[in-house]
């Protein structure tokens, strides 16, 4: 946001300048001498604070901000001890609703204009503005038009006093009884960095953390306020087993034995092809990996899909050259094929809007129905739903990108489930076939950790680390003791096979096909056609209610692990509260089931799973738990191309810092300054001397002897397969197979 000099707290003395200019709006000049702590300046600061406090009510004990309030802190640091103002303060009705979620206490407002500036400059929906003037100046929405922005919660976070309040958080806790953990929001696939806070083992608030490469400190309201469900009353807290036609609460061993027993029986009678796994985009990478290993390595089925027929084929997502969100800022052109980003991946919308509006990157809006980005688009080229982008638009975008220099970023997802993915895939292929342009794709799939699940092999034909079944067969056979014989079915295929009675055990990993699959009728017939359903879920969804075994799993806020966002950035999510009931982590459930099926994963902690992924999955090579924990901005896969971007964390979150390292008027930042020589926004490679090159964990960790599935190490280990990403073309396969298949179509 641009500085406006509203509060006047930063008046300073500048040599050779008359008066006291505000520091925030005064540009630095060569040889300027600025004094910030002279007697005159201190007197001014005291005076300004006394003015700010004249109409500020003495609400601190009942104010949600009391204890983390920048005005309070400023008063303690620079203010006068006592006020000379003895008259009656200004009074308004308090608080009034600006929308369903945001409340406004006008008495507390100090008119800094942060909220109105955010709404206009950052979010682009100025539904609030200053009204009236003089001492009656107040922020208001228009009569019948509530402040219903998708980003309204950010104004509450940046409000320097308790004027803007969140209905969800009002009176829930005080700042000093909150415990905080740094985590990522997994509501959509952008994975904005946040600080999750709990009080008395209940999650009460999520704050945005300023992470330069991802969210710039912003969150959408869906992510920020969509946290209540963690403690919802209808969470399933204990495992259930269907006995005599109805689900009964049982112990974990009973439930796990029942599930494993049925799987073993079906394996013996019908083979691995009769078992299918749907879902898995909800959990962490560790969950996805453990389930992939269970399904593909132990059971041997490839009927595994984490998408519900509403995304893009795994070949496309894993095969294209990935863009980072930062690439949008320095792009030659941006093409948006996919859904309306504001609806599906809201904070990506903020980044795209910034790139188009503030940084002048030409944006091509090629969505079929248009939406929020149209006002900022340099070119609007509506395509017919179901048709790929016209050749002229492709050419124009390519020419623009070539002229301006910089990559051509394609934002691609499914515009709607009514439309087959072909059009999007063919459009990506058209861009991929361009010569002389650096085309990079941001796959705007919406499911929380769908990119992590795809990378971990929860898709037909793939194994962890962006490798196909065939490419990784030898490697993973040795690591896992087996891989599926051939390519399996995707979600559509699984449901169709189930409806025809060819699937005998269906595992639902947080999937609710009845509600979520575009073809609800097919989903219904499928669930009716499957004799045995295992649901691993936190809620008794419509589909999970049909389960024969229900295994309650932990959810966001209750589990540690890593997640991968749409850029391929791996970040840690943190456990802040104890799981409800006896809910268990997904990866542990998979590991327990595997043990009952005769395979010992030998994984005791979540970090061991992360380390195993880092050792086994080619694209995740080297991304060990220790590295991800220390990398402030997470790590982007494949690691060796993005090593220079890693910023080593030097301290924790600034809101956690106690010794004055962070004050409440700073944005919340993950600790650690960029090391000297770290890449600036321009993306120049940094010297690699900052970090040791991560040693693949394979050479360090040896399986313990308990392992029964691992074959003893052969004299010459099979060569590690290359991941299919187009980024490794220099030394790998001739061309990424994805691009080839796309060009052929």
């Amino acid at each position, binding site marked *: 946001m641009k500085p406006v000099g509203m509060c006047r707290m930063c008046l300073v003395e500048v040599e050779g300048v008359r008066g006291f200019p505000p520091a925030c709006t005064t540009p630095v000049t060569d040889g300027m001498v600025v004094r910030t702590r002279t007697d005159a300046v201190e007197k001014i600061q005291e005076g300004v604070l006394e003015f700010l406090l004249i109409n500020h009510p003495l609400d601190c004990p009942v104010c949600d901000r009391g204890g983390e309030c920048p005005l309070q802190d400023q008063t303690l640091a620079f203010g006068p001890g006592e006020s000379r103002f003895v008259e009656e303060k200004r009074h308004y009705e308090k608080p009034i609703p600006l929308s369903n979620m945001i409340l406004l206490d006008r008495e507390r407002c100090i008119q800094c204009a942060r909220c109105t500036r955010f709404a206009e400059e950052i979010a682009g929906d100025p539904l609030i*503005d200053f009204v009236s*003037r003089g001492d009656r100046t107040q922020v208001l929405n228009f009569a019948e038009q509530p402040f219903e922005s998708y980003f309204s919660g950010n104004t509450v976070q940046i409000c320097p006093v308790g004027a803007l309040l969140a209905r969800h958080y009002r009176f829930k806790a005080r700042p000093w009884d909150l415990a905080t953990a740094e985590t990522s929001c997994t509501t959509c696939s952008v994975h904005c960095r946040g600080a999750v806070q709990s009080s008395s083992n209940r999650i009460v608030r999520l704050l945005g953390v300023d992470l330069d490469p991802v969210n710039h400190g912003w969150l959408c309201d869906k992510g920020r306020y969509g946290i209540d469900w963690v403690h919802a009353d209808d969470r399933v807290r204990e495992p259930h087993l269907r006995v005599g036609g109805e689900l009964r609460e049982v112990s974990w061993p009973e439930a796990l034995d029942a599930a494993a027993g049925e799987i073993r029986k079906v394996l013996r009678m019908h083979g691995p092809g009769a078992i299918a796994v749907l879902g898995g985009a909800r959990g962490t990478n560790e969950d996805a990996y453990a389930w992939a290993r269970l399904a593909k390595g132990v059971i041997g089925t490839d009927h595994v899909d984490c998408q519900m027929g509403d995304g893009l084929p795994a070949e496309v997502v894993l095969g294209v050259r990935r863009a980072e969100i930062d690439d949008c800022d320095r792009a030659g052109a941006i093409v948006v094929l996919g859904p309306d980003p504001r609806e599906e991946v809201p904070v990506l919308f903020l980044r795209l809007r910034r790139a188009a509006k503030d940084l002048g990157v030409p944006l091509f809006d090629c969505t079929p129905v248009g939406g929020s980005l149209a006002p900022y688009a340099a070119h609007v080229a509506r395509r017919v739903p179901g048709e790929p982008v016209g050749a002229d638009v492709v050419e124009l975008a390519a020419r623009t990108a070539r002229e301006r220099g910089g990559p051509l970023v394609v934002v691609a997802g499914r515009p709607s489930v009514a439309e087959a993915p072909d059009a999007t895939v063919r459009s990506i292929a058209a861009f991929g076939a361009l010569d002389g342009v650096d085309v990079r794709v941001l796959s705007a799939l919406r499911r929380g950790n769908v990119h992590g699940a795809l990378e971990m092999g929860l898709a037909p034909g793939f194994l962890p680390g962006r490798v196909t079944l065939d490419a990784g067969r030898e490697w993973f056979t040795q690591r896992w003791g087996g891989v599926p014989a051939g390519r399996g079915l995707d979600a559509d295929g699984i449901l169709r096979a189930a409806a025809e009675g060819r699937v005998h055990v269906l595992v639902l990993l947080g999937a609710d096909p009845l509600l979520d699959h575009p073809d609800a009728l097919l989903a219904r017939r499928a669930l009716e056609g499957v004799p045995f359903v295992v649901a691993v879920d936190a809620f008794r969804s419509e589909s999970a209610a049909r389960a024969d075994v229900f295994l309650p799993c932990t959810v966001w806020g209750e589990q540690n692990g890593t997640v991968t966002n749409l850029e391929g950035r791996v970040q840690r999510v943190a456990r802040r509260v104890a799981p409800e009931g006896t809910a268990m982590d997904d990866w542990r459930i998979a590991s327990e089931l595997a043990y009952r099926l005769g395979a010992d994963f030998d994984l005791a902690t979540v970090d061991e799973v992360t380390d195993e992924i880092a050792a086994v999955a080619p694209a995740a090579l080297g991304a060990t738990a220790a590295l991800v924990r220390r990398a402030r901005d997470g790590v982007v896969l494949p690691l060796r191309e993005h090593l220079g971007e890693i910023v080593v964390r030097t301290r924790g979150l600034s809101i956690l810092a106690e010794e004055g390292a962070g004050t409440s008027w700073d944005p919340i930042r993950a600790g650690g300054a960029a090391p000297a020589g770290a890449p600036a926004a321009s993306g120049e490679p940094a010297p690699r001397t900052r970090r040791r090159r991560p040693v693949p964990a394979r050479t360090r960790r040896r399986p313990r002897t308990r392992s029964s599935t691992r074959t003893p190490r052969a004299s010459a280990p099979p060569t590690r397969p290359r991941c299919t990403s187009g980024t490794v073309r220099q030394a790998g396969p001739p061309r990424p197979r994805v691009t080839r298949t796309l060009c052929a179509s």
Partner: protein
Amino acid sequence: MSFFTDANLARAREIVARYPSPKSAILPLAHLAQDQHGWLSPEAMEQIAELTGVTPAQVFGTCSFYTMFKLRPCGRLVVSVCTNVSCLVTGGPEILDHLERRYALDPDVTVEEVECIAACGGAPAMQVNYEFHERLTPELAEDVVDAYKRGALAPRTVSGARAGGAA
């Protein structure tokens, strides 16, 4: 449903076209709307927002800054009585008090207290729809307002424009 009449809508479009940035037309359009309707209603602000490409909240914010825009229904005649220093010592408050009582129940007349209207030379002074009247007594002031009510004096519009003149 358009708030502006067809003639005024055409005029509004023409006003918007005069400025390099459509946003600049908010104030003239607000005057136009107030002259048409007698006050600035939420519907008027919504259409101004639509014509100038901003949100209604921004129009509301802009218009609420100026006391000349009436955001609540008001009378056909707006009587502004000054009570600043010069008028204070020469009898402004008495005029205000008298007029307020006299027209308290008259829907045609809205009496308001204003700060200095830059007519100290002729204090006490008041404006009727922004037309100056100076050297008043309570009785004289009432006569002036009645003259407007009878039609003996032709009032300006609520926004202060000459009847039929340009906004």
